[in-house]
């Protein structure tokens, strides 16, 4: 018995946040809880919606139809040779994953106050579970995209579809990074959530979701490899994400330079986000 006690793990609780490495290790220890939280998010979503998974497809589709009518039919925005609906969906689906997860994650700590103020577990799992749970919804909508594209438009993306893994990884990185930052900030500043929902709307129009990136060169006279474009893609990784998805789904050369710069920014944001989250975690229960 004495032997056992000595072997047992000793935890020191003090005002210091502790080592980042130990924190990352605790994420591994709690990996099953991550699984349960993801599973809960999925189950709750299914239980709460009458149509269940039907909603997952219906919501982006209805939005896409409205946007297609306004920007494709009325405003006649160019769509780089593809049907406008497919063009729009190829950018709108990854965008709605990003926007949906970020807006949920920014309220994930304040919304789970009962949990955060009563039980200890690495709080990073709360926004983390949302990033993973949202993925299932995203995959369902992607499959739906394939169905529309092959059955209605008779177009099936070729082997180039395999490249989708790259923008998907970038999408995960940037979504996790922004989610961690906003979740931690929203405990300290209550208006972060409102600011986020407002900014997300604005940012959608700034990303090439409803307009093609090539429009920048035709309307503003920028060449495809202008440094301004690269700077923008570096500052705003969603440009690389959307261009990447669009090329993988609709064909064309992958925008490696834009995605590469996006990876750089997203990784920096993710690392700083995890560090910031870890640093502020001890005060979270007091702030909620």
């Amino acid at each position, binding site marked *: 018995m004495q032997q056992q*006690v000595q072997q047992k793990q000793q935890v020191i609780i003090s005002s210091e946040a502790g080592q980042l490495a130990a924190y990352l290790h605790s994420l591994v220890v709690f990996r099953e*809880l991550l699984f349960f939280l993801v599973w809960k998010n999925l189950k*709750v979503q299914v239980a*709460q919606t009458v149509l269940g998974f039907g909603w997952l497809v219906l919501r982006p589709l209805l939005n896409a139809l409205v946007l297609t009518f306004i920007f494709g039919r009325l405003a006649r925005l160019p769509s780089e040779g593809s049907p406008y609906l497919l063009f729009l969906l190829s950018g709108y689906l990854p965008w709605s994953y990003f926007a949906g997860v970020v807006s949920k994650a920014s309220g994930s700590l304040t919304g*789970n106050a009962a949990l955060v*103020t009563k039980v200890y577990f690495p709080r990073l799992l709360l926004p983390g579970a949302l990033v993973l749970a949202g993925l299932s919804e995203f995959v369902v909508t992607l499959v739906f995209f394939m169905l529309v594209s092959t059955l209605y438009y008779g177009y099936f993306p070729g082997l180039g579809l395999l490249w989708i893994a790259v923008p998907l990884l970038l999408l995960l990185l940037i979504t996790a990074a922004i989610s961690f930052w906003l979740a931690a900030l929203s405990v300290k500043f209550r208006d972060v959530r409102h600011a986020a929902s407002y900014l997300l709307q604005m940012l959608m129009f700034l990303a090439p979701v409803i307009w093609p990136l090539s429009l920048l060169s035709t309307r503003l006279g920028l060449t495809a490899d202008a440094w301004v474009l690269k700077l923008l893609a570096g500052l705003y990784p969603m440009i690389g994400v959307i261009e990447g998805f669009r090329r993988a789904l609709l064909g064309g050369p992958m925008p490696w330079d834009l995605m590469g710069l996006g990876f750089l920014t997203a990784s920096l944001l993710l690392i700083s986000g995890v560090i910031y989250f870890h640093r502020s975690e001890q005060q979270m229960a007091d702030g909620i």
Partner: protein
Amino acid sequence: MTHNVLEVRSVSKCFRIKAPQAKDETLITQIIRSSAKALQSVWRDETDAEQEKTLHWALRDVNLVVTEGEIVSVIGHNGSGKSTLLKILSRITAPTKGQVSVRGRLASLLEVGTGFHPDLSGRDNVFLNAAILGMRREEILRRFDAIVDFSGVGAFIDTPVKHYSSGMKVRLGFAVAAHLDPDILIIDEVLAVGDAAFQQRCLSCIEDVGRSGRTVLYVSHHLPSVARLSRRTVLLDQGRVLFDGSTLAAIRQYEERVGGFNTRRQWDSPNSPGDDCVRLLAVEVTSNGLPVDGPVDVRHPVEIHLRYEVMRGGLPILPSLHLHDLGGTLVLSSLDTHPEWHAQPRSAGVYQTTVVFPGNLFNEGSFQAGIAISTMEPYRNHLYVHNAVGFSIFDSITGDSTRGQFRGEVNGYLRPQLTWNTSRAGG
């Protein structure tokens, strides 16, 4: 040799309470100032300029060492720092100063059923709740049937929790926690809800945990359960450890602190308790006819005086008194059965009734008296004032109380003068 599983070393915890904002600022200056401040405070937690915030120390220099297998209770008023201490131990919040070291797996039950989601079934919630409390999947699978059995939820296990009664939710939550199997279990106010039978089951479950060599930290206002579960109790007051030692001594100190109850109550006639038949005007505690301030010597009598007005004559009036301890347990009830007044119709008017408790009747402790006035034939209760007045009893231990020369604990509510006869039987 026993090991320290929990060491709390001079832990203090400070909360900031924000001062109200100054009014004479425009929105724009407010935005500019707070954005500069916001940028600053994103990375830094404290700035010297933040003088406008006031500080509140919830814990001050708390030291506590718990060895393996001990059951320790923590008691104290609301706001004494109990919950803050438990939150620090369970890693929910960090101490401002000091350090805690915990050896082994610690599970806290700060609120039963934490994180239950109303839309999920009982089964799903058991898995989720157990995972949140730190159980592994295989452990949950192995103990699932035992958990459902203990909870008594039975056939409803696949019903969404939103359709459960509050009692069912509590039972399911406690059942999960009872099967956690931690080295150290922290329990806070579990027994505040649930019916008597379930409370009993929880208590024996906590006792089992303690008997199996695990360490339990129990926080409660329910003093009888504290007394039953633990031998050692820590009394917290205003964030400091006021007492750390035997449970009975801790409870006595706690009662004396809480015992700032009324020894005299008076009511103005429109607000006085009662109805159109009889109204209570005043209640007072005296000892030997003198007003009471502070604890009463165990050898002295205690008198409780009632003043009441009978508004409608012709009814037999029955005053009664119901004495509770601070944990709410009924110690005794007594009725006025004096032959001159009992069961006799009374004319309208103001009456004074006194009930005398002789000296050497109560044990040390605090008591609260509830006052009722009823009429008989047919029986009807006209008023009841719960805990109308209270008093404390102490023993100065001079040798002539019923404890004699004995210096140890004498337990129980009463300590009357009884006759003990001893004679040599042979030899």
